[in-house]
């Protein structure tokens, strides 16, 4: 019966359908497990949500997607009850749909520009993407893509995070032989060591890696490029025709305040890596320890901070978030913030840590903060946090700083032809991602200084196209790589 209904629905009726909330695991229950929080759409929900899409003639959402997924088309297929085909459609442009459906900041991309959102809540594009991808995985409908005939070219991809994997995929299907070099003992990069299991289950990443292996992408683990092989080794001795650097983030940013090196003070990277890569939550079955007491203070309010907060909660702590601006300025993806807010955490907005107070054994015991107030908007329209001179001190026995990262410095520090700016960001030609060194391209956080999974993937796709042309001798333009050390990293625009 729904078949006929679908055809007759007017745009107005579609716009009046209620937004389909994805069911969430109950907060009381979920803070005791690492299982995924949103449980996914039922087929009915997915269909109804798909009906809310009015199939714009000139869809803005596609412009809003860093990899340019044909969103209306895949939604249409879901509406028609063809989730497997919907997944296939998405895969034409994005080969990590299950991960992206879960971790993309849709509220700042496709869904932000969705027309339906003008009056109502925008179409749940991310939810639908996840639905199609999950359907495909669970029903085994995934088909292997066509691989172009062997090009005889060899390409080295450095790093197996979102950018590296995307480039590997794009280059492999174009017929090149691709080796992905990973420093850790398993692939996935930030998706493994930095994104919690309750947001992105490990099976999903492993499926994607297996998929790549099946199409012939090769992986080499325990390989820190720059150390065990330099870029020159790869090009001159190992005979790679091109190299793509996607080595991602490096040195975590630390506060410069007294006590920052106290025991029990971690960077978010360390904290999450211990748990998600090394399984410290299953200590002592896994030997990696994690010293975590009962009161955890998390500094920052970005996505990673939310991940840390919720992880600490799941490990049974009383957890507080300290951020020097207010709730409204929190940079986290709205859904993450919302989910975190359901999980019995304490929020200390407008609190700027000024000192970590330690005991005689250098263990953290208190955090001292200055209360902040927001200024009137300045010329740039931004309200700045201003010190108030008022201080407060809270007890805590663990601190996690989630303040972002600098770019991974290992490759630039071992090769002087790859030009970087003064922040360590690798400089590239914006349109081709070529670096100042011949045969070497770069993408992901290495050239932006930090962004999201999907942006990294978008760049990697562009870079892969350029690399493909390059190794086939069809990339004629001389790369235009900035020389000014003050030039910023690549700013992503939604040009597609």
């Amino acid at each position, binding site marked *: 019966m729904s078949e006929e209904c679908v055809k007759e629905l007017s745009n107005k009726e579609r716009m009046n359908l209620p937004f389909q909330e994805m069911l969430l695991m109950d907060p009381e229950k979920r803070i005791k497990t690492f299982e995924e929080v949103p449980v996914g759409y039922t087929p009915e929900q997915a269909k109804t949500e798909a009906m809310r899409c009015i199939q714009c003639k000139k869809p803005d959402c596609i412009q809003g997607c860093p990899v340019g997924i044909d969103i209306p088309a895949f939604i249409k297929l879901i509406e028609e009850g063809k989730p497997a085909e919907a997944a296939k459609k998405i895969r034409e442009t994005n080969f990590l749909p299950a991960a992206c459906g879960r971790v993309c900041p849709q509220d700042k991309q496709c869904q932000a520009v969705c027309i339906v959102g003008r009056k109502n809540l925008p179409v749940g594009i991310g939810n639908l993407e996840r639905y199609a991808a999950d359907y495909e995985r669970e*029903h*085994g409908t995934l088909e292997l893509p066509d691989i172009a005939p062997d090009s005889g070219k*060899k390409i080295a991809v450095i790093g197996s995070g979102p950018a590296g994997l995307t480039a590997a995929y794009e280059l492999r299907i174009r017929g090149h*032989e691709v*080796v992905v*070099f990973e*420093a*850790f*003992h398993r692939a996935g990069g930030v998706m493994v060591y930095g994104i919690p299991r309750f947001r992105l289950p490990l099976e999903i990443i492993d499926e994607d890696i297996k998929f790549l292996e099946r199409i012939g992408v*090769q*992986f*080499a*683990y*325990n*390989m*820190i490029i720059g*150390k*065990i*092989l330099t870029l020159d080794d790869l090009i001159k001795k*190992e005979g790679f025709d091109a190299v793509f650097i996607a080595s991602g*983030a*490096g*040195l*975590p940013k*630390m506060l410069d305040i007294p006590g*920052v*090196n106290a*025991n*029990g003070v*971690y*960077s978010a*990277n*360390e904290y999450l*890596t*211990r748990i998600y890569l*090394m*399984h410290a939550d299953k*200590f*002592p*079955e*896994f*030997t*990696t*320890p*994690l*010293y975590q007491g009962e009161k955890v203070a998390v500094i920052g309010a970005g996505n990673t901070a939310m991940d840390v907060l919720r992880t600490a909660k799941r490990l049974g702590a009383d957890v507080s978030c300290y951020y020097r601006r207010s709730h409204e300025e929190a940079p986290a993806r709205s859904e993450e913030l919302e989910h975190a807010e359901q999980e019995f955490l304490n929020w200390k907005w407008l609190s700027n840590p000024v000192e970590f107070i330690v005991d005689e*054994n*250098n263990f953290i015991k208190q955090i001292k903060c200055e209360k902040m107030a927001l200024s009137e908007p300045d010329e740039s329209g931004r309200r700045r946090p201003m010190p108030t001179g008022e201080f407060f001190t809270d007890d805590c026995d663990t601190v996690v700083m989630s303040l972002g*990262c600098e770019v*991974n*410095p*290992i490759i630039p520090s071992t090769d002087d032809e790859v030009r970087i700016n003064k922040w360590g960001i690798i400089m590239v030609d914006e349109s081709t991602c070529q670096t100042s060194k011949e045969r070497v391209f770069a993408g992901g956080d290495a050239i932006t200084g930090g962004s999201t999974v999907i942006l990294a993937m978008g760049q990697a796709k562009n870079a892969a196209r350029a690399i493909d042309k390059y190794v086939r001798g069809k990339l004629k333009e001389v790369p235009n790589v900035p020389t000014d050390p003050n030039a910023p990293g690549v700013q992503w625009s939604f040009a597609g």
Partner: protein
Amino acid sequence: MTDKIKKIVSQIEIENEDTISNALDQIGKLKDLSDEEKVDLSSALSVLFYHDHAGMVEMIKLANRAEKQIAKFGEAVVPFLIKEVTNADAESAAHLGRAIALNGAAAVELILKAWDENRGDDFAIINLIQTLSYFRVPEVVKALPEILVASKAKNHQVRAMALNAAGRLSQRLHANLLDEKIRTKMFDSAFTLISDNNPLVRANAARALGKMLSKRLLNDEQREKLLKSYNAILGNDEKHEWDYAYIVRHEAERFLPFCKAGESLADRYKQSFKIVSKRELCTKTFHFEIEAPLLAKKLKAGQFIIVRPHEFSERIPLSICGWDEGKGTIQIIVMAVGKTSSEINNMNVGDCFTDMVGPLGERSHVKKHDGTCVVIGGGYGTGAIIPTARDFKQLGNRVIGIVGARNKDLLIMVPELEEVCHEVMLTTNDGSIGIEGFVTHALQQILDRGEKLSHVLAVGPVPMMKAVSDMTKPLGIETYVSLNAIMVDGTGMCGACRVSVGGETKFACFHGPDFDGHKVDFEQLVKRQKMFVEEEQKALATLGA
């Protein structure tokens, strides 16, 4: 049967694509079906599998849909499906088999039971084996021995199907699920059949082996054997007697490329991390030589590695006491203090480390100096100073080594150090050999005899490094110490290894490990090293368990 179900069933029975498709849609929407109804529907749908679909694209699609639908009915219909499969034709058996396999672990048991009950009925057995080959769940590993027994059956079709299943499962299952023993069994069973007198069996054997090969389940020896067989089949060897059956040659040709060692590019970057020698230096302290050709090519004095001995281990940093580029090995010294170091010391020649990564950190500060260079080692650090001492000597420096320990039994690596120094001084706390006292006493003796010191490197326990730095600071002698901070990644990504040097936070793994000893905040270092004492005790306690 309720009317509703009856109606749907009758719809399926009308062999019209649209009606069937419609019926499938309806079934998809049905809720709260009883087990009986599920069986009724499955029975009706399975009829679709028996049609001759040759060339009828739409019908093939419908059959595939029916297969998925039946699978969705779940465990309730599995016994029925198994019964069906035992006397289904080839095409339907495949559909039914896949539907069963989607039901996972519980179904494996039921099939094995059916196998038992149908012994003697080769036809049923063939279909059951085929069904097993579609599973992806780990439980299906249990069925492998039975399948391998079937590969010895009299009936050549049974043999052929058993091989087919073995090959398919080796591709589908995660390699970790297949241990050494079962791999050997699989290889041996298939390998005997590569000379079977039935060509179908030979072809399937060649394919099954090829699949195992491409999934990297074979060891070097097995691969060599297979290479010979494939070449014989193709007439590539001296005998030039190719297999007359095309189907056999076809498989050999297809998988031959996988036989070539190093066929995959990424293989070049795999190191075995195998222990080639192990010797005890003193209580709880061992010297290991490990196969790691890429590392051996790149290591520089002062650099270190991070290892993970087992899948469950933490990553710990270890310093290097030598390497041999020609042999492709590196040498480390491990003193058992925590769980992971104890685990390493329990490993033996032939064992492999799960992971080893490096070279990490910067090279030691070596150059030509006017005065003498002194390298000081304590405990495991005695190994770490050897490569640096060698570098100093090679650059034409006069090099003195000092080694300290509590007593003479704990002094290690002295002969090796003597080889790379002009002079080696020993100190023991109890005076059992060499100078009685600490390494600083030896250093004082050098100063007392008026020798000009240009550079000091100290590696070992923190109090020793601190004492040396404290002594040289007022004298203005350049002094470096190698800091063994707690680490996780070792690449500058986590900050676990941060140390204070001259009031600045540095990452030992990336900026170090060698730092100016006069600027290091040793007190903080000691305290940070104790971050996980409690946890380490707990971990250590699990070691015997």
